[in-house]
């Protein structure tokens, strides 16, 4: 067992994978909790896919893909916020989110069509390349993660208030609109950074599933937040290890562990409280 563990951490690419994976998991656990609370799952999924256009567009322009990721994610966050402004507090415009999502995928494909870097690039952006992360990427991930994390944790209480009861929060002077936009921007940045690690299609899994599971395990917000982070870490580490020891992709393991656990928790809830079926 210890021999296996030393093997796991022996290679530099695995060390990078674990460092970057840990940072992303913590970020995803925290931000994902609020994303689920604010019913922004679709927005999270869309922001991840917007990253596809950003990364491919940047490649086309000869600019570092990460820059394209950031720029496109921020633009999309603004777009979602403004297009969703017509709707009231908690409601957001699914259609606007969907429209931006589709357009950015189409643009992304257009950019790939124009560039000479071929299909491999698409796959890396879409599915991530956690076992091929460079030192620079790890550094960038860490540098972006710290302020984002600090920002969310510092505004955790007003954000929680604004998410759960926006009308009352606004009456109490909480800047609900600013928090909404701010949170979307943080979500966008987290997604952009995490795309390098788990790819466009799968950052969503880390954002959603641990948080969704946490909500079923506790009703107290700070506990839920903690559980969300811990679960994200466990799934990521287990996924990385499984990916190392088998030829199957890391992302598959992370998502499967997460989903299986989520299902088990739901089943346990159902069995423990048969009188309170939710559906």
């Amino acid at each position: 067992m210890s021999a296996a563990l030393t093997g796991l951490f022996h290679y530099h690419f695995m060390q990078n994978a674990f460092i970057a994976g840990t940072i992303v998991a913590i970020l995803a656990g925290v931000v994902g909790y609020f994303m689920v609370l604010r019913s922004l799952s679709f927005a999270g999924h869309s922001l991840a896919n917007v990253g596809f256009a950003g990364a491919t567009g940047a490649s086309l322009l000869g600019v570092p893909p990460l820059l394209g990721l950031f720029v496109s994610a921020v633009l999309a966050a603004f777009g979602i916020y403004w297009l969703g402004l017509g709707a009231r507090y908690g409601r957001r415009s699914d259609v606007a989110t969907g429209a931006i999502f589709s357009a950015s995928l189409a643009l992304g494909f257009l950019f790939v069509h124009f560039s000479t870097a071929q299909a491999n690039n698409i796959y890396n952006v879409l599915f991530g390349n956690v076992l091929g992360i460079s030192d620079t990427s790890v550094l960038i991930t860490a540098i972006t993660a710290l302020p984002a994390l600090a920002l969310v944790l510092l505004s955790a209480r007003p954000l929680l208030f604004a998410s759960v009861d926006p009308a009352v929060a606004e009456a109490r002077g909480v800047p609900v609109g600013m928090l909404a936009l701010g949170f979307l921007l943080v979500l966008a940045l987290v997604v952009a950074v995490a795309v390098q690690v788990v790819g466009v299609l799968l950052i969503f899994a880390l954002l959603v599933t641990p948080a969704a599971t946490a909500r079923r395990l506790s009703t107290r917000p700070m506990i839920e937040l903690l559980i969300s982070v811990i679960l994200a870490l466990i799934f990521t580490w287990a996924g990385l290890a499984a990916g190392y020891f088998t030829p199957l992709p890391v992302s598959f393991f992370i998502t499967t562990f997460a989903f299986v656990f989520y299902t088990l928790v739901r089943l346990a809830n159902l069995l423990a409280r048969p009188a309170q079926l939710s559906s």
Partner: protein
Amino acid sequence: MTALDISFPRLTWNLWLDVVHMFQYDFMRNAFLAGTALSVVAGLVGYFVIVRRQAFAGEALSDVAFTGAMGGAVLGINPLAGMIVLTIAGALAMGSFAQRVSERDLAIGTVLAWVLGLGVLFLTLFTAHVSGSSGFSGVTVLFGSILSISAHQAAVIVAVAGGIALALLLVARPLLFASVDPDVAAARGVPVRLLGLFFMVLLAVTVAEAVQAVGALLVFALLLLPAAIAQRLTTRPYAALGVAVVLAITSTWFGLTIGFYSGLPSSVCITLLAFVGYVGVIGSMAIRRRLADVWSHDNPNSQLPASGMHQETRQ
């Protein structure tokens, strides 16, 4: 993306000649046939997707379709069959989740997240173990290959699309009732849950069919955008259905034509056209509302409605 063995077709700006020239190629004829059939069905189904606020479910199903296609390929069965089976299974699962929107979206999200993970697995297995000699690959599933649809495939697509459209039109009235006011509809004896599940199955089959043409990542655009524009332009359901279909067909026809003459991927042209239309309509409506605002401030006694807080903005 096509294997045209001639040099680029040139646009002569004599529109009739250009169209005739385009239709000389049988792959274009097939593409138009399949595309038109799919647009009709996408417009109809898409309208209900919007009214029922199931945009996320629709998008999730297109991702499920990707996983189904790759899974089918890996298991050695027809990818289309894999797609249809998995999307219907996914649709039934989604249709039975809790009815409250936020709960439903969360459940869709968690299932979607795992299905995407499965998709990655199948894609990895496919590229590693199955030879891609048939022109089928992850890319064609994701982004479509409408220009490589055979005459036989086109015929099947038309038949299936016709079936879906007919089924939808038959249940249109009760479905609309159930979508807009489920409680009252249930009280009146409308089988709301059953209709909901039935609609999800229709959506699943539509998505699976359309993926062949525009691909898993872009079928959602064809489903959503024309119907979204239609819903903004009119509140009358049957009018909106008609407008959605017309807009979908228009996007497809123009998209295919532009794709033919520019060499750009057709699915991209179709999607971007639809998106430009959507933004254009929203933008012009916003401008009109601003002008009405200004007008009503200058003329306080006028009949024009002011915008802003008093008007419920539709999606």
